């Protein structure tokens, strides 16, 4: 399988020119798989008059709007192969995305995540202090929340994992004390959690329990990182910008500048995540590609032009989320020339497209 061959290579070492044909071939292979085995996807592609055999470049691969996963259950291949279903948090629409994962997809996602994250976290495992509840990470039934999935995805990088919020998602000093007791002196520390939850916890601790938090964390090693994931919408609502977040969070957890790392990623394409490098850029690994599209014409835009982010990856085997047009606005900032040394395209996430306001006197239904 070309997809699996791709995963054998490191995430950020091939230049764009070398990556191009390898990636495209893997995408075509994956596209044909989904076209042949997901009837809804086949109808979607046929409806656009696209002949999958004749697609000659990445830009011509059809893309699904990301919100379709909230509306239609899309499964490629036999349903019996599905091991779990990832549910995104239901944001503005109130409906979660439903992503069915088989073993092949899960395995690929784990490999991709490991290859990407080791480039940012290094080989040495860290003690993870998770700003979430243990219950979140526990699987219930056949469904898994995207938060649980993200936490579990970090396990390979963790020497140990300690949850410091209770079931109500409130900071529990006792849990932190227990964690500090268990973590060895001088161990590298990674505070990890969802962006909005980290900030909410930070505010709560500042207001009530700062002393306990400082006393407990004083015993921890000084090499600290903060990894956060999960979008900015909830923070935008309380008017917190990324710069302010990084400064406040960095100071609070005593992480150095550049060690507060924001991940961009989505439930619909787990595995391929986009952490900030030291230069503040989000890099495309070998396993995914980005196209920026004009919000009116949907034409592909070049470097430096902001537009809608489309992400492509051949990893999904059990659902056709290989080419997805997101509801995010971003901009490709460069190719192969980031001072951090990682090859390939790098981009900036700017904002979510704002929900269309209701106009006129019409109702939705």
């Amino acid at each position, binding site marked *: 399988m070309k997809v699996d061959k791709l995963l054998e290579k490191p995430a950020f070492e091939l230049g764009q020119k070398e990556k191009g044909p390898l990636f495209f071939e893997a995408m075509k292979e994956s596209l044909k798989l989904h076209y042949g085995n997901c009837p809804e996807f086949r109808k979607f592609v046929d*409806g656009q008059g696209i002949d999958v055999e004749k697609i000659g470049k990445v830009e011509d691969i059809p893309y699904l709007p990301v919100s*379709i996963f909230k509306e239609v259950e899309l499964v490629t291949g036999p349903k019996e192969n599905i091991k779990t279903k990832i549910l995104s948090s239901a944001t503005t629409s109130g409906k979660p995305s439903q992503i069915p994962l088989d073993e092949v997809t899960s395995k690929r996602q784990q490999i991709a995540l490991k290859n990407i994250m080791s480039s940012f976290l290094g080989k040495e495992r860290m003690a993870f202090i998770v700003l979430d509840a243990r219950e979140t990470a526990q699987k219930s039934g056949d469904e898994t929340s995207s938060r649980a999935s993200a936490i579990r995805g970090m396990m390979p990088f963790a020497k140990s994992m300690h949850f410091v919020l209770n079931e109500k998602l409130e900071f529990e000093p006792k849990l932190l004390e227990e964690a500090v007791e268990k973590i060895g002196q001088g161990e590298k520390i990674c505070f990890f959690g969802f962006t909005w939850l980290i900030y909410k916890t930070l505010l709560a601790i500042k207001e009530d329990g700062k002393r306990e938090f400082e006393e407990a964390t004083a015993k921890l090693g000084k090499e600290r990182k903060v990894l956060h994931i999960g979008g900015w919408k909830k923070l935008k609502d309380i008017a917190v910008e990324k710069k302010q977040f990084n400064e406040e969070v960095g100071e609070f957890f005593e992480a150095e500048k550049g060690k507060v790392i924001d991940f961009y990623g989505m439930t619909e394409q787990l595995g391929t995540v986009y952490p900030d490098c030291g230069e503040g850029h989000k890099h495309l690994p070998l396993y995914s590609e980005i196209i920026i599209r004009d919000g009116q014409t949907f034409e592909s835009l070049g470097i430096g032009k902001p537009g809608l982010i489309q992400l492509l990856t051949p990893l999904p085997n059990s659902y056709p989320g290989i080419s997805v047009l997101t*509801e995010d606005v971003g901009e490709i900032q460069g190719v192969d020339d980031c001072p951090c040394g990682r090859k390939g395209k790098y981009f900036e996430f700017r904002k979510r*497209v704002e929900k269309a306001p209701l106009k006129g*006197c*019409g109702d939705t239904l």
Partner: protein
Amino acid sequence: MKLVFHKGSILDKDLDKVSGVAKELRGRLEYMHSLKGDDLIGFFDALAKSWEKDKELEKEVGGSLKHLAAYIKKGNLEQMMGLALHGNRKALDEFVDFGHSKYRQHCQPHGLIVHWLPGNVALIGFYSLVQATLTKNVSLAKASAKAYKPLLALLESIKGVDAGGIKGSELVQAISVLLVDDQDRQGHEQLSLEADARVMWGSEKAIRAVSSLEKDVFCGDIVFGPKYSYGAIGRESLKDYKKIALRVAFDVCTFDQYACSSPHTIFVQETKDVSALRFAEELAKNVGNVAEKFIPKEDKDEAKNLEILKVRAKGSMKGKVFASKDTGWTVVYSEEPGLEEACASRVVFVKPVKDLLELAELNDRHKQSLGLALEGKDREEIVDRITRKGIDRCVRFGEMTLYESPWDGFFPMDRMVRWVSLYKER
């Protein structure tokens, strides 16, 4: 609060209390009372004619100006006012005999009508402002800071008209416009307490918010809330499917389908000659033509474009999609039962239906207009049965978005007046 139009002038004046403005408006009620209903109708007719030549105004107001002009033409207003005032519009000026054995009736204005205009399209509120003025009320309109400027342009245009013995510069002083922040509950409360009648346009959230404000016990409410509209084509009418498709296309393109009277789903009772799919194809051709030649699309919202892509993706997975290359227009053929959620922005669903009586189950008070092509002797019986729980208008396709009276199931002008009886002399 900001006062942006008062005593016939555009302003930019911060305001703490509305009582002064309300008092000055009430001061115009005597002048309004001195006007005759037919002179007011003549004035608005002249205003409509002046708009036809006003290219600048058309640029500012957009495609809606033609609709507003058609609405204030003499024939329409005469008919509307006559119907609303129980068959005799003269009742606005004098006591008239409606056939009561003892009394004659005359209607008086409520006084100050406060209008909460919709958030994004303040122009829609012009319909209620005209009706309030025709019934000799004065109006205080709360407009949206995002969308009030075209409304001011319309009010300014009134000043240049002198007809039927009425000077526009005098008449327009019966209307003032305010901007009030959504969060300024105290400001809204002041408005509400000043009102002799409240007119509410907008979303369910907005209507609920205004409804909850304190008001005088005798203050009546006129609610133009959010509603959903759709269409149906009976078997006998389907022979004219090409003509019907053209008319539906106009309904879909007008106001980019954002009006409460715009159709979002069209049910087709199929025949052996014309299927719903065939109609969808024909409709797509016509929507494309109307969009290209007659009503260019104004909506350019990125989030809406993404929503359209989602509807198209889902539509192609479950049915068949006919669409422009860009997100200009979309016709989805679907066999899923029931009404489809309104996407608006020129996205319409076409579905087969076996029996039109099935539509009865879809209707409730949230459904407003039913575009209809229906022939046959049992036509009225069918409409009677399907409108029992909802639907306020069953209109010909092509005329769905024309504002009329009654609207939303009532006669707005009747709600803007108070009826006075006077015993007949023996």
